[in-house]
């Protein structure tokens, strides 16, 4: 019976632990300094908004861990000694391991902005961040205005959160439209409009220049690259995240942006593995990025690694890309790849319902008409169906003709599929005519 030590009790580490337990009787220890028990990081926003209490973000009851013989240690890890096969905790104890899993997740990006370490300036990734937010922005008399930097998923979530406490929000986005590095222009515009509708002071093509000190180490304003000064009591740094790997310095474990792993999720050091946000693939899989800070990726890496550690060597080979998010009221799902601008040889088909937020964008290959991917807004679609279409190499025509097979909206919802079909045929004819 070997001792597997997992650093990090997020989705990656906990999934690995659960699956190792399903497959084996190895001794499993999970170390985390953040919380006693696993919680869903994606749900932190709902705690601040009052939709849930923190305990509701915990997917397993507290007895679960003991019952499944998952030992939990609440501590921060100071160092890893790969020669002794030991983990050194902040408090001074050591825990020895036979195999070590690094699943330490992410921390908010900072780019050396002047004032980025002032009080009232923070990101939103961990439970500590949430507690800090309650201190920094509990209400609109303590926090008269908030500024959010960076147009990603966490930024829009933070904006939504602050709005529930009626805190005015200024949202600085480097791009022309929200998330347009990922979303095609019409999709990005749709989201930008929606954010503005919620009375967010959304500034496109605007960047942070400096965060100003009120004289006692606390933020009281920012200036933008365009030279504007905005008074505020809070700055949310949401310009992406990066792997949390500081404690591995000089450990002998090779890192770049993240912890470098091979296809079997193993680092350069034998018996040391890395999964989730903190891992960086030496050879990225397909179109995927080397570092993928995505919930689903963390979960799937945990599943894969459990196989590896239990005598069933399995390469990290994720299936078709999928993701989802919610921008205020707009639900978004994506299956396959839709690039912000069509890849060479590809085209986009875009449909939007008049006076509503229902829209789709499909990317397909022009020559073969092969379906590449879909973005869908306010229309719930079935993962399984798209997975099949992507595996079978379905054409865009086949997908659009059969879209209703993939419908996942609740009963009695007006189905948009006939309208999409008609519009798609019209557009194809138009393009034939114009040739």
């Amino acid at each position, binding site marked *: 019976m070997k001792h597997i030590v997992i650093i990090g009790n997020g989705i990656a580490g906990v999934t690995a632990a659960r699956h190792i337990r399903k497959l084996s009787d190895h001794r499993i220890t999970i170390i985390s300094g953040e919380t006693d028990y696993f919680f*869903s990081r994606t749900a932190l926003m709902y705690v601040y908004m009052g939709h849930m209490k923190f305990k509701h973000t915990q997917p397993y009851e507290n007895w679960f861990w003991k019952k499944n013989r998952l030992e939990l240690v609440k501590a921060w890890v100071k160092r890893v000694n790969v020669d002794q096969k030991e983990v050194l905790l902040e408090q001074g104890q050591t825990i020895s391991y036979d195999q070590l899993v690094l699943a330490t997740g992410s921390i908010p990006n900072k780019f050396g902005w002047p004032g980025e370490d002032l009080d009232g300036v923070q990101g939103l990734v961990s439970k500590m961040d949430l507690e800090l937010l309650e201190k920094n922005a509990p209400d609109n008399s303590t926090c008269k205005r908030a500024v959010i930097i960076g147009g990603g998923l966490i930024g829009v979530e933070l904006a939504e959160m602050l709005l529930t406490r009626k805190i005015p929000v200024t949202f600085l986005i480097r791009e022309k439209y929200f998330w347009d590095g990922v979303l095609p222009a019409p999709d990005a515009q749709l989201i930008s409009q929606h954010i503005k509708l919620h009375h967010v002071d959304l500034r496109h093509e605007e960047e942070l220049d400096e965060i100003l000190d009120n004289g006692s180490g606390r933020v009281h304003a920012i200036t933008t690259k365009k030279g504007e000064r905005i008074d505020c009591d809070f700055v949310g740094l949401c310009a992406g995240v990066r792997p949390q790997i500081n404690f591995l310095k000089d450990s002998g474990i090779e890192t770049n942006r993240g912890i470098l792993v091979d296809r079997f999720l193993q680092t350069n050091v034998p018996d040391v593995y890395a999964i989730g946000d903190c891992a960086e693939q030496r050879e990225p899989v397909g179109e995927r990025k080397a570092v993928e800070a995505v919930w689903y990726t963390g979960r*799937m890496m945990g*599943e894969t690694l459990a196989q590896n550690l239990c005598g069933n060597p399995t390469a990290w080979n994720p299936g078709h890309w999928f993701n989802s998010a*919610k921008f205020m009221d707009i639900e978004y799902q994506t299956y396959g790849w839709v690039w912000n601008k069509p890849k060479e040889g590809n085209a986009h088909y875009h449909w939007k319902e008049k006076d509503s937020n229902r829209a789709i964008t499909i990317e397909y290959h022009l020559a073969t008409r092969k379906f590449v991917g879909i973005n869908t807004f306010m229309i719930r679609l079935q993962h399984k169906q798209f997975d099949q279409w992507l595996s079978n190499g379905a054409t865009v025509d086949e997908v659009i003709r059969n879209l209703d097979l993939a419908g996942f909206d*609740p009963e009695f919802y007006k189905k948009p599929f006939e309208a999409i079909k008609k519009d798609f045929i019209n557009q194809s004819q138009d393009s034939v005519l114009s040739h």
Partner: protein
Amino acid sequence: MGVYQRNLSLTGEPPKSLNTGQKLFTAIGWAGMAILLMAAFNVNFPNKTLWLSLSLGAISAGIIGFAWASYKDKSAGIKNDGVWFKSISGRGIWAWLAILSLSGFYVLLYFYPQYLGLVEEGENKGVIALFDPLSKLLNGGPASQWFVYGTLYTIAILSFGIKFIWKYRHNSYEVIRTTSVMFFQTAFAFIIPEIMTRLNQPYYDFKNIWPLNYDLFNGYKLQEFISHGSFGVAMLIFGVLSILVITPILTYKYGKRWYCSWVCGCGGLAETAGDSFRQLSNKKQYAWKIERWVIHSVVVFAVVMTTAVVYSFLKGNESASSIGSWNDFQDKVVFIGAQEDKPVHEVVLAAQSAGAQRVIYLDRSDATEPLSLKDTSGIEIPFDVVKAADNGQGITQVQEGKQATLLPMDRSQADIFIEKGTQSVIYDNLWLSKELFIWLVVGLLTLVFGFAFIFRREQLAKDAKIGAIAYFVIVIGILLYTYTDNSSRLFFFESWKLNQFYGFLIGAVFSGVIGTGFYPIFGNRVWCRFGCPMAAILGFQQRLFSRFRITTNGGQCISCGNCSTYCEMGIDVRAYAQKGENIVRSSCVGCGICSAVCPRGVLNLENGPLEGRINSESVLLGQDPDLMALLSQNKD
């Protein structure tokens, strides 16, 4: 977290504070309530119609206006901001005050209606008197506490229903479902029964199905149905078909939601007025274990009690022609019914020889003239003819040994007064004999039990098997033992005592005082989840034999927990969703809120083929090769 939250709760800050409109309409609503309260404290309002309209109007306007002020400036979408910060929905001081007043109201309603102003003989007083004009308008008679309750209940479902529709206006399923419960409450529970009363028909809420409507087969109710001729009998047949035929078919097709969240009145109140409390249900596994035992015990109790009352109703169900000196009628009142074998005066003589105190003939026909004896020679005991239709209540009272007054058919005669403690027997020839009835019950229970154990054995958890076998053996055992024992008391107790105890414990305390009174602490479905025997039967059908399930969308779940938090039935929806499993649970009422609050579009309520409905070995999409399949292989 906790530390900061306490600092936070200084005074009402967003999102828990009320805006001006919300404050205004809260005041209007409370003004309406104040009128009712003043009436309850015997302020005598001169123009009752006016003040009642003012009061009910203000309450409705307050609720609907509050909804308008809450949602008018918000875009369509999920509106749970601050739910856990608000005192009323987050188990704060207002929640505790609310359960005190709500459950207090239920205690008055069930046990002390006189304090609400009920006067059995004579003019009502207090708040009940205030409702007299409306009652007279609808059913022609003065109000009772039940009329007051029914009116307020309907107003609550209608007003909070409008609020709910506003809140979920982006969700067609919720809008249509809520319209349905509003309709069924107003038409079926409120207006139609009142009008039927006015038309001199039995009071019957057609959608209130046994065993939720536990009194449906009670003696006085059966008397009432049978004595109303073919229309009454049709209602009785509908009542039996509702539970034995209509319910299984609809539950098979749509799951129990067709009833629990589309039709039922309890469900209607829970979904509308109770919507603010759905997050308070307990999601822990122990709560689920308690739930399974308690709710199934209630359904067993309901079956036992109903079997006993029907049996006792049928007890004297033998032809009066069989009466002879061998009967022990010492000092008993003997009821007889029509039969064709023997002249009535001979039956009376036979009863007299067996020691009867008096004989009462129950007339169930449409005759206008009372039957008279052809020969009265030798008859020394009193003989009376009464219309069964006019004396349902009185006959039941006599059967229960209470004091009673019966109205003779010949109105020129004096009322028949029966003293408390007088024993009685009924020889009234109905088509269903008590023997046949008992065997029907045994047969039906065996059929249900056999179906579950033969065809669904692999789906029953261990404790479910133990519980089912234990209950089945005990119930059938006691039934057969007491039946052959000749004590004529099924299940050891007199049936009316069982009925009374059930009515007190389950009908009043559980469903009312706790079930609704405790909304703000235990959530809005305490009764439906832990107590309702109808929900238990529907849940059994739903779990083992229904096309309904909640499907999950591949690998899209992020385990956020919104679904579990807002499940009013305390189902840990997330536990299934994050594994990619369908949710097939007895308790699910199909309200659709888990699907609505899911931020990633993972959950969907669907009807589909039985095959593959329960997929506990399901695959979470996203991997290649399929690791979950590997996992299950490796396990073997």
